[in-house]
C-alpha cells in the first residue's frame, strides 16, 4: 500500500501544498478503512460469539435481524449510539472520555502490520513484531485509565487486575514471539510468513519447525487469551465478582467502543498466531501467487480461514471453562508460562546452532 501511495504521488507529480493535502486525505482515508474494517470484524464476531454460545448452551442466539440474525450487531450498534451517555458524578471526566478510544486505538493500530495476504499489508514494517508488542500496551493504559476515572471501586479493582495481568502476560507472549523471530531471522510479519512457504506442506510452518516452537505456540496462545481478557482469564471484568470490572460505569457508545476493541483483539490475536506459527497464507495445494490477483486473493482467503478457525476455538474456550482466581492467574504466568517460554527461546537458539538452521522437516527429509 505504501508503494501504491508513493506511485500515485509520483504519477500525478503535484506541487507541494496540494501534494501534502492529498497525503493527509489519504491518511485519513486509510485510518477510516482500518477503523471500519475493525468495527465490521468486531461486530461480526459479536454475532459469531453469540451464535456459538447459543449452540453450546442449547439455545439459538440472535436470529431476527437480517438473514440468520447476522445484522444484529448493526442494531446493537445503533442502540448503543442512541443510548444516553452517562458520566458518573465525581468521575475524572477527560480521562473517562478518553479511555475507551485509547483501548480501541491500541487494537486498531496492530492491524497496520497484519499480513492479510502477500499484497494486503498496510505497512510491512521491518520491526513488525516489536511494533505489535508496543502498541498493544496502549490497551492496558486505557483500561487502567477507565478503571481509575470511573470513581467506582469495582472499576478500580478491575483496572488494577488488568494492569497486573497484561503486564505479566506480556512477558511470555513476547518471549514466544521471540522464539519465532529467532527461527525466521526477521521481525517483519510478511517475511516470517514467507519463510514458512515451500516444500513440505504444513510441516514447513513454524509450529512444526522444532518441538520448542510447538510449545511456544501454546504458550503464546494461552498468554494471548490472558492479554485479551478472555475466559478463563477474564478477571478484569469478571462479572460475578467485579460487577463488570473496568467498564461498569460506561454506557452508550463508549461501552460499545470497549467491546469493539475487545472483539477486534480476538481477531488480531488469531491473525498473529496464524502468521507466526500456522504459515499465514500458505497452505499445501493452494496456489498462492502474489503476481496474479486470483493467487493473492486465494492467499488472503487461506489466511482468513485459518484465523477464523482460531477465533472459533477462542470463542468455544470462553463458553466452556470457568474463571481462574487472580492469584492463580499470576501463578500460571510466572510459575509455568514464563519459565517454559524462556526455555523455548534458549532451546530454539540451541537448535538453530546445532542443526544449522534446519527445521524438523529438513532433518527428516535429509535422512532419505
Amino acid at each position, binding site marked *: 500500500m505504501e508503494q501504491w501511495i508513493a506511485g500515485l504521488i509520483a504519477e500525478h507529480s503535484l506541487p507541494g501544498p496540494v501534494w501534502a493535502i492529498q497525503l493527509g486525505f489519504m491518511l485519513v482515508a486509510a485510518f477510516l478503512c482500518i477503523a471500519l474494517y475493525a468495527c465490521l470484524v468486531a461486530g461480526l464476531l459479536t454475532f459469531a460469539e453469540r451464535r456459538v*454460545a447459543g449452540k*453450546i*448452551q*442449547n*439455545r439459538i442466539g440472535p436470529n431476527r435481524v437480517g438473514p440468520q440474525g447476522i445484522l444484529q450487531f448493526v442494531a446493537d450498534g445503533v442502540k448503543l449510539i442512541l443510548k444516553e451517555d452517562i458520566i458518573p458524578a465525581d468521575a475524572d471526566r477527560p480521562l473517562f472520555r478518553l479511555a475507551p478510544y485509547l483501548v480501541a486505538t491500541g487494537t486498531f493500530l496492530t492491524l497496520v502490520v497484519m499480513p492479510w495476504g502477500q499484497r494486503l499489508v498496510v505497512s510491512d514494517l521491518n520491526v513488525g513484531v516489536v511494533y505489535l508488542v508496543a502498541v498493544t500496551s496502549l490497551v492496558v493504559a486505557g483500561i487502567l485509565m477507565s478503571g481509575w476515572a470511573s470513581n467506582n*471501586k*469495582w472499576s478500580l*479493582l478491575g483496572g*488494577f487486575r488488568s494492569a497486573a495481568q497484561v503486564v505479566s502476560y506480556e512477558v511470555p507472549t513476547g518471549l514466544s514471539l521471540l522464539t519465532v523471530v529467532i527461527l525466521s531471522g526477521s521481525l517483519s510479519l510478511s517475511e516470517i510468513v514467507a519463510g514458512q512457504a515451500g516444500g513440505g506442506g504444513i510441516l514447513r510452518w513454524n509450529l512444526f519447525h522444532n518441538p520448542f516452537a510447538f510449545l511456544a505456540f501454546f504458550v503464546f496462545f494461552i498468554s494471548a487469551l490472558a492479554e485479551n481478557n478472555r*475466559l*478463563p482469564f*477474564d*478477571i478484569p471484568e*469478571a*462479572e*460475578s*465478582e*467485579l*460487577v463488570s470490572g473496568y467498564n461498569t460505569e460506561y454506557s452508550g457508545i463508549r461501552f460499545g467502543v470497549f467491546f469493539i476493541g475487545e472483539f477486534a483483539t480476538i481477531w488480531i490475536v488469531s491473525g498473529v498466531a496464524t502468521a507466526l506459527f500456522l504459515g499465514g497464507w500458505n497452505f499445501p495445494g493452494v496456489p498462492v501467487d502474489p503476481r496474479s490477483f486470483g493467487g493473492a486473493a486465494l492467499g488472503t482467503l487461506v489466511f482468513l480461514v485459518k484465523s477464523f478457525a482460531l477465533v472459533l476455538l477462542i470463542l468455544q474456550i470462553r*463458553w*466452556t*471453562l*470457568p*474463571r*481462574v*482466581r*487472580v*492469584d*492463580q492467574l499470576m501463578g500460571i504466568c510466572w510459575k509455568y508460562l514464563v519459565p517454559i517460554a524462556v526455555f523455548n527461546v534458549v532451546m530454539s537458539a540451541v537448535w538453530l546452532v546445532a542443526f544449522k538452521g534446519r527445521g524438523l522437516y529438513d532433518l527428516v527429509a535429509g535422512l532419505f
Partner: protein
Amino acid sequence: MAEVKTELMTLNMGPVHPSTHGVLRFQLETDGEIIHQCVPDVGYLHRSIEKIAEGLEYFQFMPFTDRVDYVAAINANHGWAVTCERMAGHAVPERGELLRVISAELVRLASHLVAVGSNASDMGAVTPFLHALREREKVNDLIEELCGARLTHNYVRIGGVSHDAPKGWTDKVLRFCDGFLPAVDEFDRLITFNRIFRARLAKVAVISAADAMAYGLCGPNLRASGVDFDCRRDDPYGLYPELSFKVPVGQGRLGTRGDCWDRFWCRVQEMRECVGLVRQAVERLPRSGPEFWNEKKVFKAPAGEYYVRTESARGELGYYVVADGGKQPHRVKIRTGSFAAMSITEPLARGLMIADLVAIIGSLDIVAPEIDR
C-alpha cells in the same frame, strides 16, 4: 524501606450485585483483594411472613410458605403440612404421601440444579448453569402439569395434596428420571471435575464439623462438613422411613472435608438420590385412592408448643408454632438453612479474596427470601 501508609477500602457488595443472587448485602473491608472483614447485612427481603401467619387460619398460611423459599416451594409446603398434621394428629392417605414425596424430591432436585448451576456460573462458567436450567425446566413442566404452578406451587395441603396426578403423569416422571442421570453425568464431565473449577473450590473456605454444628448449618452444608444428619432419615416424617436412600456426606475427596467443592459435590450426589426416591415412590403409587383426607371439619390444633422439622433443599426447615387451641396459630417462627449459612460467611471470608467470597456464597446455596422471611 520506608513504610507506606495504607488504609483499608470499604466495599459494598450488594444489595445489587450479580453474584449475590437477589438482595444480599455484604460490607467488606478489604486490603486490595484480600477481605479483612465481611459483615453480612440481612433484612432486604423481609415480608413479615411469620407475623402474617398469626392472622390466618392454619390452612390459609400454605401459600405464604411458598414465599419462604421460592426455589423449593413444595419443600416448604410439605414442612408446614407435616407440622399441622403432627399438631392435630391428622392422617394422610398413602397416595397423598407418595405424591408429596415425588413432588418434593423433584423440587429438591430442581433447587439443587439452581444451586450448583449458579455456583458454577459465579465461577465464570455460564454454560453449566444453562444446562442445569434446561433440566430444571423439565421439572417445572412436570410440576406445572401436576398443580398448575411453576414457581410458587402451593401444592401440599394439610391432609394430602391439592391435585391428583393427571393421567400418564407418572410415566413422564419416569422418563424424566431416565434422562436426568445421564445429564448429571454430563454436568460432572463439564464442570464438577474441571481443573480450574477444582482449583477455585477445593480447599477454599473449609468448615469443620464442629463449626458447622456451632453455627447451626443444616442440609447439604452440614453434611459436606462430615456430619451425617438428614431429617428425612433421622427425624422421619411421611413415608420416608419406608423408602431407601443414601445420605451423601462430604469426604474431602479433592481437598479438605467441608470445603466449597464438598458442598458442591454433596448437592450433585443428592440430585442422584432424589431420582432414586422419585422412582421408588412412583413404583409404590397405588392405581387409585384418595390423595386428600377429605374431612369436612375446621382445622384446629390443640393448645401447646410444637417444633416440627423437615428436610428442605436447603436443609432443616423447622416450624415452631405456639397454638392456643383456635383456628389460628398464636405465633409461628420459621427456622431456615440460609439464615444460618449467612451467619457463617463472616468468619469464613476473613483473609480470603473477593473471588472466594463469591465461591462461598454460591457453595452455601444462600437464597435471599429464606434469610428474611
